[in-house]
């Protein structure tokens, strides 16, 4: 009886005599995704050591963190950002690595384009020098973020030396309410187990509520496994998985497709498989979530209030809450719905896929952003998501409401390009981290779902999207 994680792990252990020392195994890597921020030092060291990439066909590269989301015809004006993107281009050209360059329609956030291209398929080990690589676990992959030394290690050897994780099953049972999304499940889980709750574990998300999620929703959920401390999150294969992959450019075709699907159908935990830990959530009780602090675990229901440190007995925790309140410019006990915002960001590897844009567009249709909202951005996850959205007329809905419709990239999730918060500005953001300074020095981030961000844009403060007329389908 094996868990999904056990199956994926066992499939990738390269048998050796000596590397089992100290509980480490040599794990073969099927797919290596590369972006411009965490790769230049790895390519440089590889070259200095006189080594070459082990298997070029395993690598797919794209620049996403530094690219401008405004008009790209003039290139990148920040010389440091430009150098980083140029360095990726040069490395890929020199070594013959497949790359979608900035002007390619297929360019986008690395964790959006992998699945979109069918470059992420079930049963793979997927790595990238980026913690949100956990996203790809939605396809029953063992997918996790690595540091630059490991990027070089995978380039040189196609393998990583790893220690097996423990397993944590998160069961979400029951039907999600209308207006409650995968993002709310993710935040509710983190609120329950904390940002260190998954440390040392690989998470499998299971239960009836997970089975009803689209692939976009499952990607949102697995994306935030790292915010719960788990390097990898995953979901078993079902028809939803297989239907999503079929016909995508990198996906297997014809007879090969049938063989692949037969194997993929085995990628689930056996009925009696034992997990090290299990956590259970009731989907019917999950409400739209809003973070109030500087860690994703600092989260409450939309009808909740900012916590009061006075009532917290643990001294370290009380201090953390006080520091977060100071940074966020919030008073204890403030109702969440009274918090007004300055900016709205709809995008990031968490929530920039077509389903996310559709749900936000439905909320803003025929409405205008509130007068106190200085800037509302929609940044599609890829050129193809953008094109699809434009074919559906979503761009016009957003722009008519006062949103800016941008080019794809990581954008204001981490503000390495020009999209950022100014000191003190407060943002309703569909991204994944509300850390101090994440969206710009002094910026204040509240994490929400796309529908909730859209609702906040319209009203100028946080509001329960379920109470807005015509905003749900």
């Amino acid at each position, binding site marked *: 009886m094996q868990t999904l994680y056990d199956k994926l792990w066992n499939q990738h252990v390269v048998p*050796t005599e000596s590397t089992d020392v100290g509980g480490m195994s040599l794990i073969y890597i099927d797919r290596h995704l590369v972006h411009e921020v965490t790769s230049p*030092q790895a390519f440089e060291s590889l070259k200095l050591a006189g080594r070459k990439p082990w298997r070029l066909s395993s690598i797919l590269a794209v620049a996403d963190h530094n690219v401008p989301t405004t008009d790209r015809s003039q290139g990148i004006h920040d010389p440091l950002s430009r150098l*980083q993107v140029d360095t990726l281009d040069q490395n890929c050209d020199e070594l013959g690595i497949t790359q979608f360059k900035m002007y390619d329609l297929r360019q986008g956030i690395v964790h959006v384009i992998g699945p979109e291209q069918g470059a992420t398929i079930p049963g793979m080990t997927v790595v990238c020098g980026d913690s949100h690589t956990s996203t790809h676990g939605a396809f029953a992959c063992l997918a996790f973020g690595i540091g630059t030394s490991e990027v070089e290690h995978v380039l040189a050897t*196609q393998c990583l030396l790893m220690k097996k994780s423990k397993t944590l099953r998160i069961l979400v049972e029951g039907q999600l309410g209308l207006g409650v999304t995968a993002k709310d499940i993710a935040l509710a889980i983190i609120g329950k187990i904390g*940002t260190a709750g998954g440390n040392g574990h690989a998470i499998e998300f299971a239960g009836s509520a997970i089975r009803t999620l689209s692939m976009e929703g499952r990607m949102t959920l697995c994306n935030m496994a790292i915010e719960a401390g788990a390097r990898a999150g995953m979901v078993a294969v079902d028809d939803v998985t297989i239907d999503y992959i079929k016909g995508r450019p990198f996906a297997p075709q014809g007879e090969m497709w049938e063989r692949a699907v037969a194997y993929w159908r085995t990628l689930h935990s056996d009925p009696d498989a034992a997990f090290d830990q299990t956590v259970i959530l009731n989907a019917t009780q999950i409400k739209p979530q809003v973070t109030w602090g500087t860690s994703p675990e600092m989260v409450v229901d939309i009808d909740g209030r900012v916590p009061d440190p006075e009532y917290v007995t643990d001294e370290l925790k009380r201090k953390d809450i006080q520091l977060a309140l100071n940074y966020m410019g919030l008073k204890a006990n403030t109702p969440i719905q009274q918090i007004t915002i300055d900016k709205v960001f709809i995008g990031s590897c968490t929530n920039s896929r077509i389903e996310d844009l559709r749900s936000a567009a439905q909320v803003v249709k025929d409405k205008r952003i509130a007068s106190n909202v200085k800037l509302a951005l929609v940044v599609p996850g890829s050129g193809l998501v953008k094109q699809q959205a434009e074919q559906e007329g979503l761009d016009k809905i957003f722009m008519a409401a006062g949103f800016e419709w941008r080019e794809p990239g990581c954008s204001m999730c981490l503000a390495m390009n020009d999209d950022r918060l100014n000191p003190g500005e407060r943002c309703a953001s569909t991204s994944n981290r509300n850390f101090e300074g994440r969206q710009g*020095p002094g910026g204040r981030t509240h994490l929400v779902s796309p529908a909730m961000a859209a609702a906040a844009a319209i009203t100028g403060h946080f509001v329960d999207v379920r109470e807005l007329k015509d905003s749900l389908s």
Partner: protein
Amino acid sequence: MEKFHTLTGLVVPLDRANVDTDAIIPKQFLKSIKRSGFGQYLFDEWRFLDHGESGMDSSKRQPDPGFVLNQPRYQGAQILLARANFGCGSSREHAPWALQDYGFRVIIAPSFADIFFNNCFKIGLLPIVLDTAILDLLFVSVAMHPGYQLTVDLQNQCVSTPDSNSFEFEVDTFRKHCLLHGLDEIGLTLQHADKIKAFENKRRQEQPWLF
């Protein structure tokens, strides 16, 4: 990678839980294509009153006197005491690079985020997990005694205090071996190149759609 055997060094306490890698090294400094020079921007938003950008000379900036690393008694510290879940968030190896470049050789905390913990070993920075109760004790000791030092002995896997208390810690055999000898992990893995090739060929036959 730099070898690590034993170290006796000055200790600095960072009394905050969930310190994320964005705080350790903010994103504007990730635009470098080099591995070095990050130490001057370590904890940039906490350490300086003015806003830092890549390329700035931090010695000419305005330090925040309230931040612990800026206090005169902690100058030259090589051991960082931290709280739970240190290094959470982004996988950026720039975070351990910045800590090492600043002068740290050891970080002691009750728990670390997985990716950060792993990244530290790759560059010869030693993350040590000790119980919260021991950390509480060390936080008190360092506050009470200016110039407080700890001795870290990797071979014997123990941290010793000046008053001869000694705390054992766990470390994976393989990681310890690599640190003690400063080994290049890629070189070690490439010793198995034939086995990797054989595995790959078998995989190519069994699951050709992956290639």
